């Protein structure tokens, strides 16, 4: 199943980009993974996705990029209606305290992953944040149960009364 929910990965070093995408392949069956190597390219991608009625569930973003930096990009995404609820994560080794604080305060940063990261850590964070997003934004979360946190999705069915007997 291909859904309308996207994961956006922004990283300027090709090998690092590859390794992030490789680590989260288990989500590819249910989410579209899109890559960009600059913030500017990411913005274009976001526009295209929104135009085609897609939603961006998660953005995994490096901080130091040629041109606009990662934190600036996340803050701008936070200001936009369509990407406000996108779960935002920094994967970086080089964001200073000031910038990190800015990302937390102004971009509602959900997680800071320090390079080098462990695959399990990245997968766990991706799963948690996508589960949040799906519970909040998807009318029928059943197709995502298998790949995401099925216990939390079942709990959302129980308390959110999303499904009834027919």
């Amino acid at each position, binding site marked *: 199943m291909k859904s309308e929910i996207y994961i956006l990965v922004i990283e300027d070093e090709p090998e690092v980009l590859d390794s992030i995408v490789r680590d989260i392949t288990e989500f590819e069956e249910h989410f579209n993974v899109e890559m960009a190597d600059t913030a500017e390219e990411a913005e274009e991608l976001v526009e295209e996705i929104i135009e085609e009625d897609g939603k961006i569930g998660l953005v995994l973003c490096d901080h130091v990029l040629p041109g606009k930096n990662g934190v600036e990009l996340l803050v701008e995404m936070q200001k936009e209606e369509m990407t406000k609820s996108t779960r935002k994560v920094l994967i970086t080794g080089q964001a200073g305290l000031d910038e990190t604080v800015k990302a937390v305060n102004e971009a509602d940063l959900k997680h800071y992953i320090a390079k080098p990261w462990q695959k399990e850590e990245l997968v766990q964070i991706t799963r948690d944040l996508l589960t949040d997003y799906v519970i909040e934004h998807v009318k029928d979360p059943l*197709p995502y149960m298998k790949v995401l946190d*099925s*216990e939390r999705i079942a709990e959302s*069915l*129980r308390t959110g009364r999303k*499904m*009834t*007997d*027919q």
Partner: protein
Amino acid sequence: MDKTKLIGLVLGIIGFCIPLLISFPGLSLPGHLALSIFLLAAVFWMFETIPIYSTSILVILLEVLLLSAEGLISFGSGSGYDPVPFSQFVGTLANPIIILFLGGFVLADAAVKYNFDKNMTRILLKPFGTSPAMIMFGLMAVTAFLSAFMSNTATTAMMVTVIIPILAKMEMTDPARISIALSIPFAANIGGVATPIGTPPNAVVIAALNQQGLNIEFGSWMLYALPLALIMLAFAWFLLLKLHPPALKSIPLEMKGEWKTSKNAWILYIVFGVTVLLWVTESLHGIKSSIVALIPVAVLTLTQAFEKDDIRNLPWEVLWLIAGGISLGIAMKETGLADWIVGSISWEQMSYLVLLSVFAIVSLMMSNFLSNTVTASLLIPLGITLATSGVVGGPAGTLIIGLIIALSTSFAMVLPISTPPNAIAVSTGVVETKDMIVSGSIIGIVAIVLVILMTNFYWPHIL
């Protein structure tokens, strides 16, 4: 709009037009109009062109417009049809059975709000120890018990949150994962038949029986249906253990949780207990279950244990769905459509037993693909008419055919699409559809055989 829906839309409109263009001998004008509505509803329900509850609402609107005394068409006195006041079609929304369900919904949603369902599960599971077979039996018994009073779907969702941590601790290859994951939806489906409020098809059937002057008490329904539920529950347990025998010897079962002790939580516990007690003892005090159902609605709202937002969150569309089904039955009976359909089939060639079996098998097959409520709504007018026309014979026959339809629809659990609980179980990824098909089919067949046996050896003796 996808292809199936589009086909449904076209077929539905064609179905609606056929009785308007072609005159069927022996069917009155209102009968033709009712047939138009019936065909449109049947096709829309089957293809889900629009959500099934929307079809129900459309049915009520069309009946008011085309068949009611206040509608667009004036039927002459010579037509032999005394138009039904529109309030009777609209009034199905306040039918006693709908009020009973409303009471059940409020209780169930309040139970979720105060975690009553989960805490009950935690307490009830304790005595079952740690052996996989006993744990599974416990899970199934608790699921069936809760789904007899709450929706099958909500019970399944809750139990899935209970079993996922258990499954996570097991080897990926252990067949017990499959048997446990299947046991929950199956037990929920089975538990739904046990009480009138267990599942919506029961409502459609009970409402139709009420219209025939047959009043079904809460306790009487349990007397008719509970033995079947218990036997099927034990059988499903046995079957799943045989098909997927657990490899591990013991399952650690840890459920954490605490009873809520706020004032409102206590109010819920008491109201829940009192309501259920009054329901099952109807024969002792004579207060109808639908009147008892107003107690939780009134007490929980006046104490603010159940607030405005909770009221808004009730599954109102299920009540519309049931009301549409009841209302379709009224139209089919009043216009003579049901008589006409029943009369056009030569039932005389079938024996009593074959006839009942046909209803059981058709109900089971249809509801594997359609909503259970829709199946009951489409079949019950025919079943009742058949019984009242004398082919099956007597009030006992009417009741028996009602029970057959209600129970058989609920035992349809072959596919993920058969019931929402099945869909949830398959979505976890633990169970594959093929496992569900095998065990679900066996359960369906055994249930049908038991239902038919009961029509001969059980129900006639207790009615």
